[in-house]
């Protein structure tokens, strides 16, 4: 427990700028995606084990709250993927380029690319929520 406390306070206080932020975001988006994935494997498995329950799971996912969570999930999957590609690229192809200036620039590019991919997806998903849950846009 003390280890965890040290780690969590360190995450807040450490001033490592871009490297620190991308580490935190990578970890949060990874753990968040894993949490959803675990639930998602089990809820999808109901189509075989308890087919009556599947519609209940889907009804939950259609609520506005979980719809917004789904938009967050899409950001998590996109960011974790782009940042993971960055890590794989430097680790496997350019290991000698892991210097701080390159790291900083590539971290900012990673966030920018993630947002460019995320925003159109978020708009479509937000529109779907407004159409189906609030009857907007002729829904």
């Amino acid at each position: 427990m003390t280890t965890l406390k040290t780690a969590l306070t360190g995450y807040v206080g450490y001033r490592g700028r871009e490297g620190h932020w991308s580490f935190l975001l990578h970890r949060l988006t990874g753990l968040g995606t894993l949490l959803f994935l675990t639930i998602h494997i089990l809820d999808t498995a109901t189509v075989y084990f308890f087919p009556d329950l599947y519609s209940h799971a889907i009804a939950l996912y259609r609520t506005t709250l979980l719809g917004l969570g789904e938009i967050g999930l899409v950001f998590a999957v996109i960011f974790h993927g782009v940042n993971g590609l960055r890590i794989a690229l430097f680790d496997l192809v350019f290991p000698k380029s892991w210097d701080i200036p390159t790291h900083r620039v590539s971290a900012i590019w990673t966030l920018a690319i993630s947002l460019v991919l995320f925003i159109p997806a978020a708009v479509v998903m937000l529109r779907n929520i407004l159409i189906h849950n609030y009857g907007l846009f002729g829904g």
Partner: protein
Amino acid sequence: MTTAPSSTPVVSPAPARVREVERRPNMENIAWRWMRYSALLLIPLAWGHVLLQDVLVGVHQIDLDYVAMRWASLGWRVYDTLLLAFAFAHGMNGLRQVLDEYLRTPTARRLMSWGLLVVWLVISAIGAIAIIGGVRAAA
């Protein structure tokens, strides 16, 4: 008139020497590489799945019949099996690496690793059985 003090000879710094050592990779090295290779595979698999199901189709169009229609094609079952295998293994190994940092004793780490292995196997099996078994009719 200024002359360079002769008492301090100019010594050019010796170039940094990087010693490369050949050694047999252990489990941790293999896991480290595997996380990066599986990441490259997960970019098309996970992004494709999220783009199709969350953005283009949307949860409001998904129900038991939709899953049945999708799994009527062997290609999508293979796709989902690959996604289940690689995404969940990548995520659980990531969780293991994260928890490794917060656990101090070898006993705690061993217990955690075995615990995660069991959870990984059980949930992967549940997902695999559902994909193979397919959609059953709701009552």
